C-alpha cells in the first residue's frame, strides 16, 4: 500500500516554512531587562545588608537566601510561571529561577508521596544544572591548579 504523498524532505521543508517562529529579538530584550531587574533587586538587598555593617560575604548570602525565598513563595502562589511566560531566560537564569525549578516539581509530585514523589522528583529540572555545573567546576579547577 502506497502513501498518498511523496517526499519526506519536501514535507519537512514546507513545515519549516509554515510554522511561526518565535520572535528572538523581542524574547532576548524582555529576558535582558527582566533578568536585569531581578539582579538590581539583588544589588539593593546586598547593599542594604552592607549598610547594616555586615561583611560582603554575609551580605551576599543574605541576598541569595532572600531571593530564593521569594522565588519559592511566588512559585507556590502560582505567580512565577506567569513571570516566566513573559521573561523566559530572564527569570530562569537568576537564582529565583533555580528556586522555581526545585519548588515546581516538589509541588507537582507531592501526590506521589514524600520519598518517591517530592524527594525523587524535586531535582527533575535542576538536576542537570547541578551535575554539569559540578563537572564544569572540576574541569576549571584542574586548569586553575596547573596554570598556577
Amino acid at each position, binding site marked *: 500500500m502506497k502513501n*498518498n*504523498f511523496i517526499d519526506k524532505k519536501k514535507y519537512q521543508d514546507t513545515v519549516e516554512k509554515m510554522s*511561526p517562529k518565535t520572535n528572538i529579538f523581542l524574547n532576548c530584550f524582555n529576558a535582558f531587562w527582566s533578568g536585569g531587574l531581578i539582579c538590581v533587586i539583588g544589588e539593593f538587598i546586598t547593599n542594604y545588608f552592607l549598610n547594616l555593617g555586615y561583611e560582603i560575604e554575609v551580605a551576599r548570602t543574605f541576598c541569595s537566601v532572600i531571593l530564593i525565598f521569594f522565588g519559592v513563595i511566588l512559585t507556590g502562589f502560582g505567580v512565577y510561571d506567569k513571570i516566566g511566560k513573559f521573561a523566559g531566560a530572564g527569570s530562569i537564569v537568576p537564582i529565583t529561577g533555580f528556586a522555581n525549578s526545585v519548588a515546581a516539581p516538589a509541588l507537582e509530585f507531592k501526590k506521589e508521596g514524600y520519598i518517591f514523589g517530592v524527594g525523587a522528583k524535586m531535582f527533575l529540572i535542576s538536576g542537570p544544572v547541578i551535575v554539569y555545573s559540578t563537572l564544569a567546576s572540576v574541569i576549571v579547577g584542574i586548569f586553575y591548579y596547573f596554570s598556577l
Partner: protein
Amino acid sequence: MQKKIRQQTIKFKNPVYIISTSSTVGPKEGEGPLKDFFDLILEDSLYGEISWEKAESKITKETFARALEKANLSQEDIDYVISGDLLNQNTGSNFAIRDLNIPFFGIFGACSTIGEGLGLGAILINGGFANNILIGASSHFCASEKQFRFPLELGTQRPPSSTWTVTGQGSVILSNKKNQDENKKLPCITAITPGKIIDMGIKDANNMGAAMAPAAFDVIYSHLSDLNISPDYYDLIVTGDLGKIGHDLVVKMFGEKNIDMTKNYNDCGLLIFDIEKQKIGSGGSGCACSAVTFAGYLYKRLKDGVLNKILFVPTGALMSQLSSQQGESIPGIAYAVAIENHD
C-alpha cells in the same frame, strides 16, 4: 450487509444511531467560543479531587453517567464501554470504569481515541454483537503537562507552534435502534475509514499539528477516493487537533492534488478555543479536544439540522516522552468517521 469498500473504507448499510452524547470541559474551554454547547463547565480543574489524575477519572465517570441519563438507559442496557485517554496505561478510563458493571475495551489512539472508539463501536453494532455501546475519550491539561512536559508552576515559555491540551471528556452512545420518543432524523455513522500510521519525520513535540497532518490528509484522501466522492459531499470535514499549522498543511496538501478544501474544512482545535484572544498557540489538542467538540458542538448542530453530513476525523500523535528523548520522530494517525442524519 455491511461491506469493506476498496482499500480502507467500511460502509454500513444499516444505520448506527448516535442516540446520546455528553460533554464536560474545564474552565479554559468554558471561556472559549463553544461554551454554550457543553453540558458541564468545571469551575476548578481539580474538580474536588486531590490530584489531576483523579479529577480526570471523576470527569469521565460523571460524563458517562450523564450520557446514560440523557438516553434514558441504565448500565444494564449497555453491552460494552470503549474508552481511552492520555494517561499512562489508560488509568483515566480504567479508574472511571471500575465502578461500572459493564464489559470494557480500553483503547489507545492518543488524541484520535474518540475516532477509533466510534469506528470499533460502529463495527460491533453493525455486526450484531451489541445493541448499545458507550464510548468516551478524555484528557486533562494539568495531568498531561505533568506527564509529558514540565511541572505546571515551572516558569517556561511555550513556542507559538505548540498546542493546548483540552481538559474534559466527551461521551457518545451508539445504538442499533432509535430511542422510542425520537421521530425525527438522528445522526448516524454511515462509514468509517481507519487510518494508517504515517510518519513524515517530524520530531518537534511542540509542533504536533505538523506531525499529524499527513495522516489526516491520507485518511481523508483515501475515504473520498474509496467512496468516489468529493469533499463538498460533506457539509463539514473536521479534523481532531491539528491546530492552525496542521490545518493549513492539510489544505496545502489537498491543493497539490487539485482538491479544494478551503470551503468546508475546519479543525476541532481551532473551534474550541479563540487562539488569538485566549493565547493558545496553534490550537487545542488532546483526546478531549475532538471528543468534546463532537459530543458538545457537532452533535447538537447535526440534531438541529444546521449540519447534515459531516466527516469527523480525530487525529493522534503516537509518541511518548521517552521516544521523543531518544530522538524518534512522531508517527501520526487519523480515523475518518462519516456521520449523516438518517430516519
